[in-house]
């Protein structure tokens, strides 16, 4: 597992039923591209987050395939529809097999 991986997510606490909200996510990760070389000229092996998904109450909102060209600390902003109260679940998949998860509740009312 890469060190110091910390997901940060911004979701509004409340929404009206059917409202479209903006979600911002950031996860601290070096996203080593596999293109760089160290001081001795050896290629530093690739180590990135290769997939990010967001689901709401089990239904998919967005699924992003990520390549090494995405910056360090990958940031994503997107919109989601909120039909009812529930929980957003965010998942990041690392090249090394680790999975980072976080979730945020939202209340409709």
């Amino acid at each position, binding site marked *: 597992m890469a060190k110091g991986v910390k997901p940060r997510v911004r979701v509004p606490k409340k929404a009206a039923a059917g409202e*479209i909200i903006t979600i911002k996510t950031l996860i601290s990760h070096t996203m080593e591209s596999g*293109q760089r070389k160290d001081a001795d000229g050896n290629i530093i092996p690739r180590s990135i987050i290769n997939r990010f998904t967001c689901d709401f109450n089990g239904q*998919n*909102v*967005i699924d992003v395939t990520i*390549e090494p060209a995405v*910056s360090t600390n990958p940031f994503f902003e997107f919109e989601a529809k909120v039909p009812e109260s529930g929980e957003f679940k965010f998942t990041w998949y690392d090249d090394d097999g680790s999975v980072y998860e976080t979730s945020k509740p939202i209340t409709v009312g």
Partner: protein
Amino acid sequence: MTLTRRKVLALGAGGLALAGLGLPAWAAETTEEAIASFTGGAEMGEGLLTLTTPEIAENGNTVPVEVSAEGAASIMLLATGNPLPNVATFNFGPLAGARHGSTRIRLAGTQEVMAIARMEDGTFQKASATVKVTIGGCGG
């Protein structure tokens, strides 16, 4: 050296190919392959997909880009001048509020950034923008 008709034609064709693509020759093939694997060689329309990039990026390590296309099922981002042209693919689920996504990407140098959207009706849309990069973002 005498300029034969054949040589003149060859030079002209080479020059046109370079000017038309605006890409370094080594990147052209892989970018085309990436597009082909996404679209399956289908024709791409223009106009429905919006790609927002800065005109000048001081730092190629983190360039904000935004894509949006009403009615898109998924949108692929390509950096045509990077060692690996694939950047990211947004696949929208049933609860996506808008067919819109934004992220930050690495660009190796001044180049054309391209977005291709697969619409829900199975057609494809493309958009591209040139970004001037002051400091490249791929190390080395």
